[in-house]
C-alpha cells in the first residue's frame, strides 16, 4: 500500500508575505488538525520565508468580529482558517473584502469565491485503509494470545460531527472489506466520547473497550485520545493484556512505538503549506481543493513520516530516551509483526480501488444519511457507502 510521504523540501522564494493562522476554538495543542496547520505554516516560514502569526479565538462568538477586523486591517496577505467553525465567519466576511485571500482548511463554505481556497479531506479513504490494517493487526494480536472468536477492533472518537462521520464510515468500510476478503468475522466498537479535550474520559472509554476484548483502538478524538493511548499502554504493560493503538492526523507512533505502530494521516499541514505557497509563488487559485488518498491528503504515515514527527518531538523535548531512529526501528518491527502480508495485500487492493477512482465514497449530507450508511455497512452492504463503483 502506498504510504504518505514526509513533507519534502520545496523551492525557497523571497518576499515579505505575511500570513495569519486562525485556529479552531481551543487552538493549538489538540495534537490534531490545529497543530498540523501550525506545522505546515512553520514549514512555510522556514522554506518560503514568510511571516506567520497565530490566533486562537476564545469562542465561536469571536470568530466573525475577529475575521472582519483582520480582513479590514489588510495586514496579512493570507488568512488561514482552520476548522469548520470558520465557515460562517468566512461566509459573512469574504465578499466584503475581495482583496483579502483566505484559505479554509477542513471545511467548505459551499460557495465558490476567487479569494477563498478551500481544502477538504476525504477522511473515508484513509480510514478505510486503516480499517483493513486494524482488523489485520487485531487478528495477529489475537493469534499471539491464542484467543479464538471474532476479531475485535474499535475507535474512540470525539464528537459526532461530519469529519468524524466520514472517519466512521471509512473505518467501518475497511473493517468490513477485510471481513469480506478474509471471511473472518470482525466485531466493531465505536464510541463518541463527546469531548476533544478530556483525556481521562478517553482512558475510561478505551478501557471499557479493552475489557470487552478489543485488540486495536483507533484514536479520533484529539487530546481525548491521548488518554486512549495511555489506556492501551497500561493494558499491555500493567493490565496483563495485549492491544494496539492507532493514531490519527499527525504520525503519533513516537508516543509509544511498540503499541502504536500505525497512524492515519490527514495532511492539514500540506493544505496550509500549499495555500501559502500559492500566495508566495503568485499562483493563487480560489475554489475547492479535495485532498484524497490520490493527492496524498489522507492515508497512512510511512516510516519517513514517522521519523519526521519523531524528529520534531525529539527536538522539542517531547520525546525522551529514544532517538527518532529508534522509533522508526521499533515501528518497523511492530508493523512487520502485526501487519501480515495477506492483510497488506488486501490494503493495497483497496488502496488501488480508491486511488484509481474505481470507488468513490459518499459524502453524508445529514446525520440520518450517515447513520443509514453505518447501518448498511454493519449488515455487510459495502456498496451503501459508495457513490461510485462497487465491491463485488
Amino acid at each position, binding site marked *: 500500500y502506498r504510504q504518505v510521504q514526509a513533507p519534502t523540501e520545496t523551492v525557497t522564494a523571497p518576499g515579505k508575505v505575511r500570513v*495569519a493562522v486562525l485556529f479552531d*476554538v481551543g487552538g493549538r495543542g489538540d495534537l490534531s488538525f490545529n497543530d498540523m496547520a501550525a506545522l505546515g505554516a512553520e514549514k512555510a516560514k522556514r522554506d518560503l520565508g514568510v511571516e506567520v*502569526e*497565530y*490566533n*486562537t*479565538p*476564545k*469562542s*465561536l*462568538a*469571536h470568530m*466573525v*468580529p*475577529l475575521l*472582519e*477586523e483582520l480582513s479590514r486591517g489588510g495586514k496579512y496577505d493570507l488568512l488561514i482558517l482552520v476548522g*469548520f*467553525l470558520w*465557515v*460562517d465567519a468566512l461566509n459573512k466576511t469574504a465578499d466584503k473584502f475581495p482583496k483579502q485571500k483566505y484559505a479554509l482548511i477542513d471545511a467548505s*463554505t*459551499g460557495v465558490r469565491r476567487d479569494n477563498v481556497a478551500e481544502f477538504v479531506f476525504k477522511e473515508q479513504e484513509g480510514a478505510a485503509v486503516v480499517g483493513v490494517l486494524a482488523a489485520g493487526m487485531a487478528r495477529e494480536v489475537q493469534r499471539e494470545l491464542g484467543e479464538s472468536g471474532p476479531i475485535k477492533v474499535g475507535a474512540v472518537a470525539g*464528537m*459526532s*460531527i*461530519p469529519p468524524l462521520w466520514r472517519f466512521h464510515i471509512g473505518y467501518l468500510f475497511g473493517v468490513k472489506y477485510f471481513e469480506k476478503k478474509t471471511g473472518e468475522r470482525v466485531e466493531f466498537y465505536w464510541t463518541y466520547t*463527546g469531548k476533544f479535550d478530556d483525556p481521562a474520559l478517553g482512558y475510561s472509554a478505551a478501557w471499557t473497550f479493552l475489557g470487552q476484548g478489543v485488540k486495536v483502538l483507533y484514536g479520533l478524538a484529539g487530546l481525548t485520545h491521548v488518554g486512549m493511548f495511555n489506556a492501551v499502554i497500561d493494558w499491555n504493560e500493567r493490565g496483563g493484556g495485549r492491544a494496539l493503538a492507532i493514531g490519527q492526523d499527525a504520525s503519533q507512533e513516537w508516543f509509544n512505538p511498540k503499541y502504536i505502530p500505525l497512524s492515519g494521516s490527514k495532511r492539514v499541514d500540506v493544505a496550509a503549506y500549499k495555500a501559502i505557497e500559492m500566495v508566495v509563488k503568485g499562483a493563487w487559485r480560489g475554489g475547492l481543493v479535495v485532498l484524497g488518498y490520490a493527492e496524498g491528503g489522507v492515508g497512512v504515515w510511512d516510516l519517513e513520516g514517522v521519523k519526521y514527527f519523531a524528529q520534531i518531538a525529539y527536538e522539542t523535548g517531547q520525546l525522551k530516551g529514544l532517538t527518532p531512529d529508534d522509533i522508526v526501528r521499533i515501528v518497523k518491527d511492530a508493523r512487520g509483526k502485526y501487519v501480515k502480508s495477506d492483510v497488506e495485500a488486501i490494503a493495497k487492493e483497496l488502496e488501488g480501488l480508491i486511488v484509481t477512482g474505481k470507488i468513490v465514497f459518499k459524502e*453524508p*449530507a*445529514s*446525520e*440520518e444519511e450517515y447513520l443509514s450508511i453505518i447501518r448498511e455497512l454493519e449488515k455487510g452492504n459495502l456498496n451503501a457507502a459508495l457513490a461510485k463503483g462497487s465491491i463485488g
Partner: protein
Amino acid sequence: MMLAMGESGLRKVYPVLESLAALIAGIIGGFIVSAVLGYDPFASISLILLSGFGNIEYLLSISVPLTLSALAFIVPLRAGLFNIGVEGQAYVGALAAVYVSSLTGFPLPIILAPLAGALIGFLIGVLRVYRGVNEVVSSIMLNWTLFYTVSFTISRYLRDPVIVHQSVRVDRMLSALEALLIALAITIAVHTILYRTTLGYYIRVMGSSPEALKYSGSSESRVTLTAMSLGGVLGGLAGALQVYTVSGFIDVTMSAVFGIGFMGIAAGLIGRATAVGALPASILISALIIGGHKLELVLGAPPELADVMIGVMMLALSAPYALRLLSSKVLG
C-alpha cells in the same frame, strides 16, 4: 481605625476603591506571570488592556450576551441560590431561538427562548424545593445533560441543508447598538425588580435570611422557584442574544454558546453581584479576552494570560477586607 469624620464618605467610595484595587492587582498579576514566563510585560499588559477597546462594536456585541448571563447568575444569588445552571439555560435558550426563528421569524424567538431557559431554572428550583437536591449538584449535572441533549437535537432535527454541522440560522441579526439597548433595558428591569418590586424584596430577604422570609409572609419554595425561573429567563435570553448578536446559528459542538454561563459567573461576581455592575464587568472581561487575542497575534504569547489577569482580579475582589486592613495600616 478610620478617621471618624470621613467614615461615611469612605463607606460610599469603598466599592469603587475596591474595584480599582482589584483591577490594579489583576494588572500586577498579569505583569508578574508574563515577566516570569519571559514575555515583555509592558507590551503584554498594555496590549491586553487597551486593544479590547479598539473596536467598540465588536466589544459590545460580545459583552451584551455576557451581561445577560451575569444577570442570570445574580438574580438567584441575591436569594442565596447559586445558579451555575446558566450555562445549560443558555444552551436551551439558543436552541429555542434558532428553532423558533426557523418556524416563525423574529421577534417570537426572543420571547420563547427565555421561556425555555425558565423551564430549566424552574426544574432546578423544583428539585431543590421538593427533592432537597442542592442546586449546585443539579446545575452541574443538568449543564452536561443539556449540552448533549441540545447537540443531539441539532444534529438530528436542525441541520442546515448546506452546511451540515450547523443548525438552521436565525433570519436576522441584531446590531451591537440594538443589543446594547436590549441589555440596558433588561438591566434596568432587573434592577427594578430587585429593588422596587415585592418579588425583588422577597428575593433579597431570602438571601439575607430564609427564616425571615417565611416570617415576612412569603415562602422559601415560592421565592426559590421564581428566582430560579427568573434566572432561567435571563440565562435563556443570554443564549438567544448570543445567537442573535454574535453567531446567528448554533452548531453541534455548541461552541457558539459554550462557556457563556461560566464567564457570566465571573462577570456577575466582578460586577459585585449588582444589576448595574453586570454590564461594566462584562465589558471589562470581554475587553480582556479580546486583548488576549491580540496578545497572541502580536507577541505570540498564549492568550490565556488574560485568564490569569481576570482570575487575579477576582481574587482581589474576593477579599475587600484585605484592602480595609491595608488602608487602616496606611492611614494609621
